[in-house]
């Protein structure tokens, strides 16, 4: 098992390098000069701009800039933000907690309500409960997130005043989490429902029932466990959505976060920040996939890694 883990870890390196390379060169395709962008609206002299360019290492040829970046990144130095001159690792560290909070909130809501509804619907197919749950689910995957966000802010923030407009803390996390999690709720609910409906008629479930085990135990121990596998896959895939869904949600709710940081950094051609975020997101995705694969082994005894 440990050999497997090691192999997986080593396998992530080329993926990370490819991702960052693509990002690096894509950034240079964007029109605009970062120095001019930084000195936005300022009648700065040519010498000042050249000076700044030299300071940021932008005057060296492209491939040299790239190798320097890689070399520094390997040592853990992600460079310095063009805009704020703060070390990039610090900039990201400041914004990351808010995004993680939001992703966790969205995940929590998505998984609990998604699984809950899917379970209930799957156990009673074609009942009114099933219809209601599936209706909610399809609304969840069809509704534009930023619209939900706006409506929620309008009703609960402005009209009723039940949640704060700005500020951190748990209360301010509720509405954004609902928005981020709403797509996941729908997706997961539908998936769980169809998994359970299928599995109910599988042989080994019938066997368990025939053995006289109580229905609840049958479902929870056997059916649910196997329904979890595709769900876990889904969550792994959804992770990208959670971080990405954060971009819009962060904008509408005026929150901090990696998403908003990325948007600003792209618009201002703050290369180091964009590259670092891309590396981070890719690494997170790989890690999530890895955890998902490990969970498979736990959930399905037939799967073993060597």
């Amino acid at each position, binding site marked *: 098992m440990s050999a497997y883990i090691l192999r997986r870890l080593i396998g992530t390196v*080329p*993926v990370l390098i*490819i*991702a960052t390379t*693509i*990002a690096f060169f*894509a950034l240079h*395709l*964007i*029109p605009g000069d970062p120095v001019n962008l930084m000195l936005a609206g300022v009648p700065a002299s040519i010498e000042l701009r050249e000076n700044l360019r030299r300071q940021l290492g932008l005057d060296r040829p492209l491939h040299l800039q790239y190798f320097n970046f890689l070399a520094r990144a390997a040592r853990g130095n992600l460079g310095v933000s063009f805009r704020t001159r703060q070390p990039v690792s610090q900039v990201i560290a400041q914004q990351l907690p808010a995004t993680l909070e939001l992703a966790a909130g969205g995940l929590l809501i998505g998984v609990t309500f998604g699984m809950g509804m899917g379970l209930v619907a799957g156990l009673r197919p074609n009942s009114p409960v099933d219809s209601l749950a599936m209706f909610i689910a*399809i*609304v969840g*995957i*069809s*509704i*534009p*997130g*930023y*619209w939900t966000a*706006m*409506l929620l*802010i*309008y009703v609960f923030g*402005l009209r009723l005043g039940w949640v704060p407009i700005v500020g951190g803390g748990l209360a301010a996390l509720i509405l954004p989490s609902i928005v981020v999690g709403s797509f996941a709720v729908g997706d997961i609910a539908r*998936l769980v429902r*169809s*998994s359970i409906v*299928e599995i109910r008629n599988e042989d080994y479930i019938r066997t368990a029932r025939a053995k006289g085990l109580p229905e609840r135990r049958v479902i929870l121990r056997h059916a649910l466990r196997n329904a979890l596998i*595709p769900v876990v*896959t*889904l969550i792994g*895939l959804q*992770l*990208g*959505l*959670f*971080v*990405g*869904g*954060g*971009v*819009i949600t962060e*904008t*509408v709710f005026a929150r901090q976060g990696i*998403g908003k940081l*990325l*948007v600003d950094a*792209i*618009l201002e051609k703050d290369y180091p920040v*964009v590259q670092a*975020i*891309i590396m981070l*997101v*890719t690494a997170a*995705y*790989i890690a*999530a*996939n890895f955890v998902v694969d490990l969970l498979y082994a736990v959930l399905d005894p037939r799967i073993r890694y060597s």
Partner: protein
Amino acid sequence: MDRPTTRPHSIRPAWRKLRRNPGAMAGAVILLLLLLVSMLAPLLVPYDPTQVSVGPPLAPPGHRHVMGTDRFGRDVFSRIVAGSRLSLPMGLLAVSFALIAGTLLGLVTGYFGGRIDSWGSKGIDILLGFPPIMLALLIIAVLGIGIFNVIVAVGIGGIPRFARIVRGATLAARENVYVEAARAVGMSPLRVLLKHILPNVSAPIIVLATLYVGRAILESSALGFLGLGVQPPTPEWGTLLSEGREFMRHAWWLMVFPGLALFLSVVSINLLGDYLREVLDPRLKGT
């Protein structure tokens, strides 16, 4: 029949199934209406959608303006109807783009295998994990703001999904007796792909397409919402929503109606999509 393909069942049982499924019926009706509206838009708009001051600015819904007016006194209903000609096709075109490019990629990597597959799969995996909005942002930053660029950005985001599914189906289909025979006989790879592999992968492609259209519409309107889509004064639902957000407290109709239009479009497509998937193969789950 020798070909182990999944073909859609014949029409009559499919139609009967539709009538028994209220959700799908509703979806079909709504979608049909929307498509009609979209096609007949120029005839249906009571006012020129880009004409300013046809009414007082920020007027609430009333007789003369069923959905109110915006800050420039433009009729909201006309703008939403006109917007259907953008928001819906943008999503459809993006899916087509993803479908074509993704299928090609999937076919090539699945069929030829080896190093092509190895590198291709890595590329697909990377793109797959990346949050679609971030990817779209990067692409828009490179290409610039505009409708066509939004289609490309959303389309590129969808390629890995199609490529993955097609690759998997291609790998399976490659083992098919017919394919081996064709290759032994010396048929060119292109013909093999077109005659034998493609028909076998068409079902999963259609399934994925039905799942993805709704998402594509939402994603392209999200870019419009962020101001990266159309140019003023062109109406597009996502852009209309961002205008609505600015005046949320003063003109709720600017926020409600464009969002409703988007929601109805996507929900009807999803309802129909569910039904289509059942018809194609009741056992297919899809992700």
